[in-house]
């Protein structure tokens, strides 16, 4: 299984979105998130986008105040994940228009819908932005 979890964390270390593809108890999650956030947030722009932690590899990318952290298996293709993060951001950008931390915060459900269209069971399911956004647009129209 490729992707183990997707986290969005702001630079104060507050979690804005957490989606796990393997079951962890709430304590395990808290511990893991704490450790990862501490590790990644301390890194500089000049350092690489990969951090090894326990038996995960964290591929992360920073957009303004928000960090996108994806935990993957060790043998996952790191650059493909790195660009997958960007694809996620671009998709949110297309939907929200100039997406920012607050959008994700107040529209947690939409962020979840999008992520759910893109990743399933730790695997990439869709990479076409319009396909990803179709169900959300349908729902928006309906309401």
């Amino acid at each position, binding site marked *: *299984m490729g992707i183990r979890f997707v986290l969005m964390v702001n630079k104060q270390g507050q*979690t804005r*979105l*957490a989606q*796990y*593809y393997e*079951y962890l108890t*709430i304590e395990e*999650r*808290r511990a893991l*998130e704490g450790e990862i956030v501490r590790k990644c947030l301390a890194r*500089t722009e*000049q*350092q*690489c*986008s*990969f951090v*090894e932690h*326990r*038996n995960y*590899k964290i591929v992360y990318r920073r957009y303004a105040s928000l960090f996108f952290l994806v935990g993957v298996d*060790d*043998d996952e*293709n*790191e*650059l*493909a994940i*790195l*660009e*997958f993060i*960007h*694809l996620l951001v671009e998709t949110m950008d297309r939907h929200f228009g100039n997406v*920012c931390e*607050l*959008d994700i*915060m*107040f*529209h*947690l*459900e*939409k962020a*979840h*819908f999008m992520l*759910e269209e893109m990743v*399933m*069971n730790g*695997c*990439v*399911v*869709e*990479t*076409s*932005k319009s*396909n990803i956004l*179709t*169900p959300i647009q*349908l*729902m928006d129209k*309906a*309401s």
Partner: protein
Amino acid sequence: MALSGMRGLSVFISDIRNCQNKEQERLRVDKELGNIRTRFKNEKGLTPYEKKKYVWKMLYIHMLGYDVDFGHMEAVSLISAPKYPEKQVGYIVTSCLLNENHDFLRLAINTVRNDIIGRNETFQCLALTMVGNIGGREFAESLAPDVQKLLISSSCRPLVRKKAALCLLRLYRKNPDVVNVDGWADRMAQLMDERDLGVLTSSMSLLVALVSNNHEAYWSCLPKCVKVLERLARNQDVPQEYTYYGIPSPWLQVKTMRALQYFPTIEDPNTRRSLFEVLQRILMGTDVVKNVNKNNASHAVLFEALALVMHLDAEKEMMSQCVALLGKFIAVREPNIRYLGLENMTRMLMVTDVQDIIKRHQAQIITSLKDPDISIRRRALDLLYGMCDVSNAKDIVEELLQYLSTAEFAMREELSLKAAILAEKFAPDLSWYVDVILQLIDKAGDFVSDDIWFRVVQFVTNNEDLQPYAASKAREYLDKPAIHETMVKVSAYILGEFGHLLARRPGCGPKELFGIIHEKLPSISTSSIPILLSTYAKILMHTQPPDPELQSQIWTIFNKYGSCIDVEIQQRAVEYLTLSSKGAALMDILAEMPKFPERQSALIKKAEDTEIDTAEQSAIKLRAQQQAQTSNALVVTDQPTSNGIPPANQLGLVKMPSISSTVDHDSAGQELSLENGTSSKVDSQPPADLLSDLLGPLAIEGPPSSSVQSQPNTNSVLEGAAVEATAIVPAGEQANSVQPIGNIAERFHALCLKDSGVLYEDPYIQIGIKAEWRAHHGRLVLFLGNKNTSSLASVQAIILPPSHLKTELSLVPETIPPRAQVQCPLEVINLHPSRDVAVLDFSYKFGNDMANVKLRLPAVLNKFLQPLSVSAEEFFPQWRSLSGPPLKLQEVVRGVKPLPLLEMANLFNSYRLTISPGLDPNPNNLVASTTFYSESTRAMLCLIRIETDPADRTQLRMTVASGDPTLSFELKEFIKELLVSLPPATRAPTQASPMPPVAQPVSVPTVESNDPGAMLAALL
């Protein structure tokens, strides 16, 4: 920014956002949870909208890291809501909050199934996604056929099918049987023809899972994958939506190449050619561009292509292209590419014959070891570790040591472990190895595990050349102001053993050594004090003539610790004090430790076990493989270098002239060598125990423990040594002839009772034995140890088995290198009952001397017995049912060596004939039982009764019964031999047994003489 449709949710989120600290946030969350709980209690009044809102709040709280232990039912119940928005929330929140084993999920199976087989596409998608994320075994069993149908259905739209593919992947992982390989392989191949890239992307993930389990079944998908790759690489029929910065779905390209890596080879030449064309294009055509995203995407594809080329171990030219690319990558500034370059170069090491090319980049890699980014440093460390060999070990290890001083704590332990392993494996000379380890301890003592210093001690002990050097180094480190406790331990140990070699140097006299070591004592922990005490005892022993002042200083310390609360310390202190007042005896007991057996490095084992990340593990595994291919360097370095060996005394046994004299002495010597020397323990135990074994000899040294075990013996040992010392020296001077050390017969008898010990020893060789017995099988290991500085040649070992034993001796090498020990396993199977004894015909040549001995092997009848105690209820019916000859045999035995009844009982017990006290009403009688194993009899019960005459202890009546006439007879004769025709009753401890003649031929093994004294001593 448009607020969400749910006002209450937005308000709650704002509140949370406005919280100043964690405490406020917790209060707000608790309040909200209370609110939701009350609302859920009277669920009837809740509209679906409200329910949806509260469930979202729960998810939000859960995301913040709070436990939400209620409301799961409400989330699950939303799944069956008729409207899409509620249903959607139900599905999404359920898959976030619940795990696959949650009871509520089972309740929902039917609803989920209805959604999956229903007509509503959006409902199908929701249900498939949830099952894909958290479906368990039950889902697998009940839903798999429906999901498969959807995936291959032509009427289904891609948006449903792509989810069905990943849903099936989940179900397959939960229960692989749900996918029927025979039928499904063709379906998969058809799926690979899919035009829709979404369906293709998720199907490719499914394929990866399937082929990783069983690539043969999905062979037909291979050419299809290559076609997909070609389609993408040529950008044919790829919709704009799937093109990412001009690159046709990089994710699908990567996944497809990943799937191809699960097929071992590609046989079809056309497919192979097509694939190589594509790969070639990727390797050559990937340029660095300005746009970061495009660059990343194209390099994602490139790195996957590299992995595939490595996997296929393609043409040489392509491989060297890969190495060249990687060489370029590890030199760029862009950190991501450099990281991946290093990582993939490490993987490249798996491929043979590129090692030399990679070595050219060594300097560049070392630069990365100093990079400010820990991720990059880790990769560099791994790569350096993987590429290290004899040619570059010095440079690499030196770099690692240098880095150690500045490395962050997170890396130090791993770093020191790796440096230690490399130093050990590839040391150009041993003094360098000692230098490295001492530096390691000096720089990162906290991170140097005990195994590392145990290992260096083993090396020093086993290599005389090294001892003065190690001792002087240890002495130097002690001068440093603040040294790590591990350094204190290793220095104290080495100086205790070998400090006397430095005696002539300034500052290295016994007094000075003691002084500087003792200075450290207040700063070390309790567990290290015993090592220092041993060192003091050894210093004392090496100080000849004794120095009264030093002696009184050390005795004061022993006295002080003689009442220490720590048992280990107390015991050592008391023992050393007693021993050291015994003068010459101290020399024997505290003689130098014998060589350690050659053993596999515990470090490497540890490194394999260490749970670091998998990439690291793979590098270590690789290392281990290489090691297996090229004989292990460890063993080689154990043997001395060719430049002669100083006549230092290696084994205490050889050194002490008195030692070859008395029986007891020998057994004490054996004890010693067993404690420290025998490798049998190491080899027969699982490697995990290596550490404890390592601990054994070092922390609890042989001498003290042996004196503990044989407390009653100690005195006589010492007396024996003192008394016999002068008498025996001349015997030792009979030059040239190969004189056995110790009494061969007694060694044999001792081994009849125990399972490990020395079978034979002479000045050149020691043959040890270690045996394990299980039913009618025996597994023995012969340890042939060359005690000398030159090889033993023409070594020959032949087993002359009696007819009842089937034996198989593994190959015995013709030469035994100097100071080496070889192990020869010997398998024994007992076919039928017999008292005959197998003989080992052993010969070797040393210089011009040819030695030949015939040694009885302790594969004797009692080894195939299993002690068994029976109750009266079990005994008597059996006893009665075996009536008379030939099954039950009775004999009056005369000329029995008189023994008190209790000693006779002990004798029986020691031969695995279990005495059942009180079974026989007559107190002068003994009743014993045992189980005998052989191939012909299988497990067979044997019962024995001995009736003694208190008036005449030289005769008794013996009755032996079993279900097999031969067994009854043989066992009766065996016991008779135990009891009769024993030599005069002399106590072994005071008896100086005569030297047996050289190469003593073994008499026909019928009537054995047994020394009861020796037996009883063994029993004690």
